[in-house]
């Protein structure tokens, strides 16, 4: 019987979403803990032996004690052998006096929730077999060397599954040009001599879908999206590892709220229709939508766009827009507003004839209209 593990990381509990309004902010903050709750439930449903959090459970060291206690309470709901929580770079453990981890340990005392804040091995002897976890926590937010080096020389008794847990960038998977995030290479991980690695830090999952066999490492990605930069719905790994090293893995979708950003240039009615169709395909009540729109539309289409945006605002969980859509003044509109021969007619017609700056005509029209209203 294989050892069953549910692997997550980068939960970033305590992420403030301070740039969002109150209602949506609270919802998103709550979602982070709710998604973790769902993970625990899934782990129980699958009768996982271990729930592994490979770093950055918390967004920062100064998260409130109440949140720490809440997180521990959620994790305590796991019915398996143990919850292993590794200190990542955001919730790093500088030493025994770390307030976050002292609070965590106090809250987890007597439970199966274990904080991995120092380099160590942890053995479990189950009916299915023995497992040794090699923990490589982060001692700081930044580091130029990987924390996994010691594992290669660590004792690895035969007859046990050896699993490494670490947090940091993997060369080729994430961007760490300055080598500041405990950069690891796949070769180093392979040469460590463990059966596989459960990693955290990169918010994008790995291995790629369809990969078979036992990968050198797993990266679950963030468990529920936190911004438009996250283009996936939030994932975790369910892993079955046989004592013979055989591996079955399944990617779980764990997030309930999505973030989407759509950048579009609107110049025709079709562009608006296309935009409407695309956003309609998402799950509006559970989606935070960010639209960056540019282009030029005539008045009618601009009104149509405004109407569409108002409608989207009511349908989506939250909508932010950055509009750089200029009203396209047409010769017909100029003719509609200003009789031939008048200065506005002449000026606007002249401005509209500038192919490089056709939007100037609309600006001039605004000024002329302000004059009329004055």
């Amino acid at each position, binding site marked *: 019987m294989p050892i069953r593990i549910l692997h997550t990381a980068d939960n970033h509990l305590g992420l*403030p979403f*301070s*740039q969002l309004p109150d209602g949506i902010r609270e919802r998103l903050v709550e979602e982070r803990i709710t998604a973790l709750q769902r993970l625990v439930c899934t782990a129980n449903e699958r009768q996982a032996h271990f729930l592994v959090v490979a770093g950055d459970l918390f967004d*920062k*060291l*100064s998260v409130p004690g109440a949140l720490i206690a809440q997180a521990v309470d959620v994790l305590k709901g796991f019915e398996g052998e143990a919850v292993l929580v590794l200190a990542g770079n955001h919730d*790093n453990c*500088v*030493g025994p*006096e770390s307030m976050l981890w002292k609070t965590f340990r106090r809250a987890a005392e007597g439970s199966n929730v274990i904080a991995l804040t120092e380099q160590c091995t942890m053995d479990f002897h189950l009916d299915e077999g023995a497992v040794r976890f090699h923990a490589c926590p982060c*001692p*700081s*937010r*930044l*580091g130029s060397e990987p924390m996994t080096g010691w594992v290669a020389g660590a004792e690895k008794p035969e007859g046990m599954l050896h699993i490494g847990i670490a947090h940091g960038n993997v060369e080729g998977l994430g961007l760490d040009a300055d080598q500041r995030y405990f950069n690891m290479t796949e070769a180093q991980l392979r040469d460590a001599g463990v059966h596989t690695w459960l990693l955290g830090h990169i918010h994008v999952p790995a291995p790629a879908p369809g990969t078979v066999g036992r990968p050198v490492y797993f990266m679950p990605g963030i468990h529920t999206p936190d*911004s438009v930069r996250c283009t996936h719905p939030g994932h975790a790994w369910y892993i079955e590892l046989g004592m013979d090293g055989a591996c079955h893995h399944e990617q779980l979708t764990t997030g309930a709220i999505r973030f989407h950003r759509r950048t579009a240039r609107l110049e025709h009615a079709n562009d608006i229709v296309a935009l409407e169709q695309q956003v309609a395909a998402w799950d509006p009540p559970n989606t935070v939508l960010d639209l960056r729109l540019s282009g030029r539309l005539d008045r*009618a289409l601009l*009104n*149509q766009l405004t*109407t569409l945006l108002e409608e989207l605002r009511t349908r989506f969980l939250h909508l932010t827009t*950055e509009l*750089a859509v200029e009203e396209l003044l047409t010769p*017909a509109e*100029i*003719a*509609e*507003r*200003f*009789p*031939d*021969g*008048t*200065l*506005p*007619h*002449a*000026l606007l017609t*002249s*401005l509209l004839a*500038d192919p490089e*700056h056709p*939007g*100037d005509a609309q*600006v*001039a029209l605004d*000024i*002329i209209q*302000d*004059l*009329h209203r*004055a």
Partner: protein
Amino acid sequence: MKLLSIRLHPFGGTTDRTITLHDGLNVLQGANEYGKTTLVHALWHALNTSTDLVPSALEKNMRRWFPLPTGDHVRVTLCFEAEGSTWTLEKTWGAGRSARLQAGNGAPMADPSGIQQRLRSLLRLNEATWKWVLFTGQAQLSRTLEHLAKEGTTLDDVHGLLQGAAAIPGDIPAARLRSVLDDRIDAHYSNWDRTTNAPRGGRGIGNPWKNKVGPVLAAYYTKESLRAELEMVVGHERAVDAVNERSARLTATFQKAEPFITEGRTLRNGLSSRIGLEEKVHRLTNTVQQLMAIVNAWPGATQVITAKAEELERSATELEKVQAELDSARKHAQAQHLRDVHRRITEARAAWQEACSKLAALPAVDPQALQQLRKLEQHINDLQIQVEAQKLVARLESTGARSVTVQSGTEAPASIALAPGQPWQADAAGRFSATVDDLQITVQSGLEDVDALFGKLENARLHRAELLTALGQPSLADAVAAATAHVDQQRIVKGLEDLYKAALQDRAEEEWEAAVKELTALPATRDGAVLEEERTRLFKHQAGIRAEIDTKRTQVEGWTQEHESVDALMEKVIVHRAELSGAQQELAVLPALPHGFASVKDYLEALDAREREQDGVKGQLDTVRREHARLEGLTPARTAEELREELDLKEREFQRRTAEGQALLRIQQRLAAVAAAREAGDPLQGLADAVARYFGALTADRYTRVELEGTTPGHVHGPVRLPATQLSQGALGSLALATRLALAELYLRNDNGFLLLDDPFTDLDPQRRSRAIHALMQFAAQRQVVLFTCHPEHADALVEAGATGVGEP
């Protein structure tokens, strides 16, 4: 374009109604709310509104005309003449929307946008012209007058209103637009330096402008403030990272040393005891060894003393013998010495006697005679020098061979042989004589009396010879040598005599001879040096034995004093051994010295040093942790990632504001060009005359000239020149109508169009109304006019003037 008929079926409150229109002035009279406005809008939409409307546009533009309560469409059919053809236009909006335009029996058009394009070309003038000039709404004119009544006659109000009602709506004087645009640009770039593209005066966020902050500057301050905040946050994050890194390093150092220190603290006491015990064991071991050495040495020492004493006796005996032999040997040495001395005395005496013999053989030289001889020699030399000073050179030549006797100076005469061709030459001192046969030639120096000189010299030489003969010496040098030899020999004799006397050593020679005779009876001995050597050896040997005996005695005395006896000493050894064993056992149970240290002292020193280092590291850790806590307390509310995202947003916003400003500048430039072009060719040329003509007609030529500002009447000329704002309400209304008619005339001068008027005489008194009707009829003589009125008397007056009544709308 000339309208022929319009049918509403339905439109607004009209279910189905057709109105036929004619050339000239068409009058439609009906009460208020009777559908005039509906008809105007039906006409307007038929000509200008496409049937292909999006739902929102349909709702906005046409919904209000759907028949209530349940009408879902409106329809208008318009017949008109244009471009030499009769056209039929039918449009339906709403349910079953459609459009159809057909010229005569030609192919109908059904495409809504195509129809609108065709209509635009048939209408010729643009939509705004039709809307604001030719489709004059009732509300607009009456609103003008209402506003004038309500708001008073302030210049701005009237001017703006005149613009709205009397001029071409929408038109603006170039100067005003330029002024507004300049203001807008100034406001947009307020406190922004376009040259440097930075805040004016270089006042960035460190010293920002508080007042007159334009959009560009505001956007700039916003983004730069964000950037500063981001830098602060990044700096804070880096500071935290640095503190964490340092903490991790110190913690690692602390943890690395902790096991050693912890173990050391446990071992410290035990190891400190070990030092004392080790010392004790070492001391006891040495003591036992020392005591055992005494135990072993003590009995032997006594025996040694006895043996050495015997040896000493034997040595003394031997020494006596050697001493006796040595005395004899010394005597022998002394005898030899006596013989040597006697021999030396004999030899000295012989030498002395020989020297005396030699002295006797040497002649003595009288010193006074010698002295005299020296003086005489010196005198002779002086004379010779004087003679030499009278030097002559003699040269003899002969033509034949001959013998000549010559004498130079005081030299003896000599004979020379002369040969022809062989001259003879010689030096002569003082005098030279040459004698040939009986001829003697004498030459002598004239400087002195040479004869006297030569005589002195001769006498001196004779005296010298006498002295030498007396001394028995051939020469002065020989005399001196003889004197010297004599003196030397005297000295030698004296010296030898002294040696002899010294050798005697104050004794007579006979005494010495007697002593030598006595030595022949001594016995033979070995060599004295050998005996001396042996005696010395024996002395040393005895000294050594004595020293050895003394040492042993001192040892034994010391041991006896300290330990009493060998037995007592053995007891002591036993006690010390027992103590040593106990200490060793005690030592065995103490903790061992850790590996890598030569001694407990080294280990404890290392432990102390590590503890001090650890205290230092702990102190640094405390400092770092305090710093960490301080930084944690200063954690910014927002993260760097959030701020970067917002900064991107604000950067784009700043770019937009900048682009807006550039657009304003371009508009400013374009306005200048357009305004200049307009000044060159005024498209509304003649308008002033037309306005004046109509105004004159409406005011019975009270005002005959109008000055326009743009398209707005600014001043009127009558009896006096008046600003238009100072006209009465009635005159102003006439001016508004005159301007409207003049504009329509201007726009329609090349086209066959029509003018709509909606109760244009509302506020005109009957006289002005009559004149207005007249002016209108003149206008309508050339162009189609459709006039709506709710006043029957107005309609009657118009019909009476020649207008066509087209029935109630």
